[in-house]
């Protein structure tokens, strides 16, 4: 299956319009819709937000074409709105976090598995095992705070078990920076993967920052602060993979191509007909955005856009469970860390990272606290009689005789 980016026609910009009713549709069903329908909404929303952020930044750095940027940005904003508003109101903030983590794990795993550049693939796998652990900690929080099962959201696609412990993910800022790919030598797929992974990391960072303070429980508030911090690291890592020598028009082109890639994958795999119609419509929007930016790029930079983005997308994102790949990575790379731009065994991490990590954990580690001795079991850990019947009271104080 392929998508010809040069020949496919999109929807003319003047017909990319919305109404408030159109933006606020009947949401998906938390109970009945497939987990990957929710994941697709999160991933597509993330790349839309990334495009909007980029287009704002382009203006603030004095870019030309302000009117075109504003036109496209307004459409991207409304696309992001429509996607976000398809999430249902009976989905709690914590359930949304479970879904965000599942999106990071499953789509992160897919792009890592398909990534042709070994170094970039290694970086993506590093992030993958960390997101995987976040899911385990959030599931523990959901069970222990609300008495609910994260698997009702995950629908058995994604394992709930420890990954690289969150407490071991905190690294000094210089150890989150990676070598950037070479814009003139690297495969277009690598450029798209770095952007999709970056968009997902940014989205999770913002989500944890927004949702964390809505909790009353101090452990929940701490855990979200910790997860947001790791996601900030992941944003740093993903950004650093991108060649800073790319021109801003080149970057814009790649953002639009990443959106096309994601929407195409969504359209090819969607099970909900109502949501599928949205993917169909938004893919047509993005093909037009890509065409407009491609023409602008070729006119301005006097070079062929196919030097930057592929003329044809050869394989859509599958949005399917990646259990086997994740377990394989878990078995072989859980002990990995990073020092500078290199991946090293955790015991070879830098002194800066060790000191940074020790400082943060000086008053305790929220991710360790929330999941202490936690093992997921269908429904709840309380399904295990040893846990259900265990005393929750502290041991009685011993009499001292005085």
């Amino acid at each position, binding site marked *: 299956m392929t998508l010809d980016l040069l020949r496919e026609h999109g929807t003319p910009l003047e017909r990319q319009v919305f109404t408030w009713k159109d933006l606020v549709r009947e949401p998906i069903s938390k109970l009945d*819709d497939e987990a990957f329908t929710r994941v697709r909404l999160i991933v597509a929303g993330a790349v839309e937000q990334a495009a909007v952020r980029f287009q704002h930044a382009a203006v603030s750095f004095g870019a030309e074409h302000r009117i075109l940027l504003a036109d496209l940005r307004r459409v991207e904003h409304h696309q992001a709105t429509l996607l976000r508003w398809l999430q249902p109101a*009976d989905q709690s903030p914590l359930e949304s976090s479970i879904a965000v983590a599942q999106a990071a794990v499953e789509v992160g795993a897919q792009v890592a598995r398909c990534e042709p550049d070994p170094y970039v693939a290694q970086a993506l796998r590093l992030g993958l095992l960390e997101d995987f652990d976040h899911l385990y900690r959030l599931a523990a929080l959901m069970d*222990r705070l609300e008495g609910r099962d994260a*698997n009702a959201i995950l629908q058995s696609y994604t394992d*709930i078990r420890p990954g690289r412990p969150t407490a071991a993910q905190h690294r000094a800022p210089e150890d989150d920076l990676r070598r950037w790919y070479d814009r003139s030598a690297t495969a277009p797929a690598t450029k798209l993967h770095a952007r999709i992974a970056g968009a997902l990391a940014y989205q999770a960072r913002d989500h944890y920052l927004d949702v964390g303070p809505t909790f009353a429980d101090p452990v929940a508030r701490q855990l979200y602060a910790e997860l947001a911090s790791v996601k900030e690291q992941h944003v740093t890592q993903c950004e650093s993979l991108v060649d800073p020598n790319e021109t801003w028009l080149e970057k814009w082109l790649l953002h639009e191509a990443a959106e096309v890639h994601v929407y195409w994958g969504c359209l090819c795999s969607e099970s909900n007909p109502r949501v599928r119609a949205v993917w169909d419509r938004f893919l047509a929007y993005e093909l037009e955005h890509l065409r407009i930016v491609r023409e602008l790029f070729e006119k301005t930079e006097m070079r062929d856009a196919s030097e930057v983005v592929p003329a044809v997308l050869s394989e859509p994102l599958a949005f399917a469970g990646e259990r086997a790949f994740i377990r394989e990575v878990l078995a072989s790379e859980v002990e990995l860390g990073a020092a500078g731009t290199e991946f090293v065994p955790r015991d070879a991490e830098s002194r800066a990272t060790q000191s940074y990590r020790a400082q943060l954990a000086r008053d305790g580690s929220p991710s*360790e*606290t929330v999941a*202490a*001795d*936690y093992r997921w079991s269908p429904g709840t850990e309380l399904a295990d009689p040893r846990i259900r019947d265990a005393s929750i009271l502290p041991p009685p104080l011993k009499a001292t005789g005085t």
Partner: protein
Amino acid sequence: MNRAPRPTDLALNRTGIYLSPTDGPAMVEGAREAPSSPGCTRALAEVRRQYAGEVGVIGHMPAPASLQVVENAGAAVLRRHRVHLLLDKLGERLAFERTGVRLFDALIAKLEAQGSWDRGPSLATLAQFRAEEAHHFALLQDVLINLGADPTAVTPSADLAGVELAGIVQVVSDPRTTLPQALHAHLVAELVDSASWELLVDLADDFGESSLAHKLREPLAHELRHRDTITTWLKRHAALVAGGALKYGA
């Protein structure tokens, strides 16, 4: 009721593990094989205990709008505390009644959209209950002003009432919920509301404010009727479904 399908109709609810004959056992096996995170399960309780010992309260009572409260309360510290308790609880009821009006607005819209059932809620009854909630709100506003308090101030208990009611507002205002589902959520509000009015009347009596207690007895009677009526509607609905007269269960 004119919407179909209904929530109790069978469809593909994907939340249970038994729906995934391959992935479900794989999940269980994966979790069983993996080590759990180190530490003792008491760790979470320890952090909660530590924070509870360090943090302050959600907020405090506002200063009185006039000196009347202080004058009424006299000099005794104990009496001042009792006044603040009474004002806090009056503020809580005021907040609850204000939201109660809006809950009935949403219930009326839902009934208009979906219809009712035999001896179920009618528009006239819902409108009457709404009017009573609005009347209670106005009454409490007058009571607070007469006591020299500011009825627009959010007291600590009023703030928490808003948090308590948040889930009920979500259920009732969601266009996807049915009238019985929304009434069930609203019953939670009415159960708390009736018990809280009882508490308020007792408090006014204990405080020696017999005329205030007398004023509060009428809203209490209304709220007990709201609670009992909604319970009856829901029981009737369940009986009709059980008897096969209604084809939907929720």
